[in-house]
């Protein structure tokens, strides 16, 4: 008996280890694939990035003379690893990525891209993580309850609301919220990450200030993403509520709230964890759009700026850091999954 148990434990450890190993291997692959795309896509396209840069300098520097321009071309080729064969370029690219060195931003020259990313990424992460967790919880809980009581009138009302709200473009929805709550009814600020006129410091007032500024962007994301989770959860619950253990607990008179939360929602949420992992990329993109509406000092606004100024190097940097961020978040969610599902934890 003891032997059996030992053996059992070893097997468990092994499956868990295989799961983790496979997952981490995949993470490395995803990062590799994504960043390679970042390297190759621009090189497959017809336009020459260096010309874009020179153009940028021309637009706001005083007229550069021809000789300067030509030397600049060479400098930039070296700077951006565009000299040498494709293989050499690719190797240089990786060497630079691994040291998080994306070169300088063209528009915000000479600020290095990595410096800009360091400045803006925390805002995006904060906005995204908060809104994702809140949207996921609220969407799943309301979706779970509505799915369980799918005949009730308010559940039907929620259905209609979610269906109509869900396909709204993030930009339009955010803008409407902005007009409603920052202009017509001035409860929230018009945008930005914190109040102007005084740099942020680490204290409760600053924290509340940041919260107040991020309320509307978070609300936008929570409502729009929450509607997606709502729909998914509602469908999942309709399956789960017909499972034997739910039906039986119901027959046994287990109280409704206990039934809905512990039996129905908890079980239906498990596939939603996987869903969360898969949709982080989408959520990320949505957050980027919402930031723009609210002039939120995150990667989205930076990207918008970079696009309109054609700051090609910065766009590459943002794309690269997005891939790293998103795949890391997905990895974290996937690694958390066994903690939630005992069937994987103790297989």
């Amino acid at each position, binding site marked *: 008996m003891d032997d059996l148990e030992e053996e059992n434990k070893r097997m468990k450890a092994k499956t868990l280890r295989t799961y983790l190993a496979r997952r981490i291997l995949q993470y490395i692959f995803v990062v590799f694939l994504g960043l390679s795309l970042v390297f190759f896509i621009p090189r497959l396209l017809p336009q020459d990035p260096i010309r874009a840069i020179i153009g940028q300098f021309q637009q706001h520097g005083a007229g550069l003379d021809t000789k300067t321009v030509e030397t600049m071309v060479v400098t930039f080729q070296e700077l951006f690893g565009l000299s040498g064969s494709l293989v050499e370029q690719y190797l240089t690219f990786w060497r630079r990525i691994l040291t998080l060195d994306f070169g300088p931003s063209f528009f915000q020259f000479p600020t290095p891209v990595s410096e800009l990313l360091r400045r803006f990424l925390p805002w995006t992460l904060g906005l995204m993580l908060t809104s994702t967790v809140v949207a996921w919880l609220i969407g799943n809980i309301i979706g779970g309850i509505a799915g369980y009581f799918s005949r009730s009138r308010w559940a039907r009302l929620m259905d209609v609301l979610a269906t109509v709200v869900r396909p709204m473009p993030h930009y339009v929805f955010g803008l409407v919220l902005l007009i409603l709550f920052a202009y017509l009814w001035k409860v929230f600020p018009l945008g930005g990450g914190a109040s102007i006129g005084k740099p942020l410091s680490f204290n409760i007032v600053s924290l509340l200030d940041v919260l107040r500024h991020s309320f509307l962007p978070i609300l936008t994301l929570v409502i729009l993403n929450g509607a997606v989770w709502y729909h998914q959860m509602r469908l999942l619950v309709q399956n789960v509520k017909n499972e*034997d*253990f739910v039906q*039986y607990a119901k*027959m046994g*008179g*287990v109280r409704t709230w*206990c039934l809905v939360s512990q039996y129905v929602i908890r079980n239906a949420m498990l596939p939603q964890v996987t869903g969360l992992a898969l949709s982080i990329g989408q959520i990320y993109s949505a957050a980027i759009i919402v930031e723009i509406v609210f002039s939120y000092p995150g990667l989205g606004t930076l990207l918008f700026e970079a696009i309109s100024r054609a700051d090609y190097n910065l766009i590459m940097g943002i794309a690269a850091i997005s891939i790293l961020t998103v795949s890391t978040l997905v990895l974290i969610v996937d690694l958390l999954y066994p903690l939630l599902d*005992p*069937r994987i934890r103790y297989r």
Partner: protein
Amino acid sequence: MGLVLKLESLRAGYILRSLDRNRVIPAVNEVSLEIRDDEIYGIAGESGSGKSTLLKTMFATAIEPPLRIFGGKIYYYVQNKEIDVLTLSVQEKMRLSWQYVSYIPQGSMSVFNPIRKVRTVFLDFLKSHVKEGEEKLLAVATRHVKALGLAPEVLDAYPHQLSGGMKQRLAIALATLLNPRVILADEPTTALDVVAQKAVIQLLREIQRESKNTIVLVTHDMGVHANIATRVAIMYAGKIVEEGSTTAILKRPLHPYTKYLIDSLPRIGDKHVRESVPGNPPSFLDLPSGCAFHPRCPYVQEICKREVPQLVNVNAEHKIACWLERR
């Protein structure tokens, strides 16, 4: 010997939403039966004969859409008072369930929430009927599990870590937690291997012997009935076609359908393959006229095709619904 449960011409079934109209599936048709104190009452029949539905109608809280009662009455006898179950409010029904009548479902392999420990399910069930602190309730559960001869450690396991037989026995433990007067068991031995089956039957018998309560046991396996049932009812197409003491039925089955069922039982020293019932059970959507069994009956007569035979007493303990016996 008092009654614990009585059905009077009960009609129940499901409503199927189909292409152009709603169709009624009359899974239980004009069933009357009386279940007594301190007995094991078996209900037998092929799958699709309506026996599980019948069992569900006996369990008050299980009567909810899509299952519907079309007519008839259900009575419980709580502390010698006759209670018309169908007139009860939801709360009153809830109070009775698990305390007066409990249920072991079909396919009870998956009655436990897969992502929570078995213990929590026991607690949830207890909490909704007994107002006590969690620790006390846990003690109750542990004591009960122990009393049934199971290791109390299983309560700390997740369902997927347990064997099918163990889960079934835990389901029985769950159903008997509050010492109910009536236990409704729906196919408790199906899908178990022989050894586990035996343990489950043993457990049920012991529980009954100990607390002198009543078990209503639904299974298609006549062998199980032969083993533990006091009385047996045979169901066909939503009707009871024969009812009597187990010994009487086994020894002298009167209905041709019962005969087939009994003949299909394996016996020691048997040499040839047993005969099973010829043909297929009818669909509830398209029941034959007259006696629903007539298309498969070797003794079919004209009257069988026209008129429905009523369940009548052959003797005090034996009832049958067949034109053959009327002759």
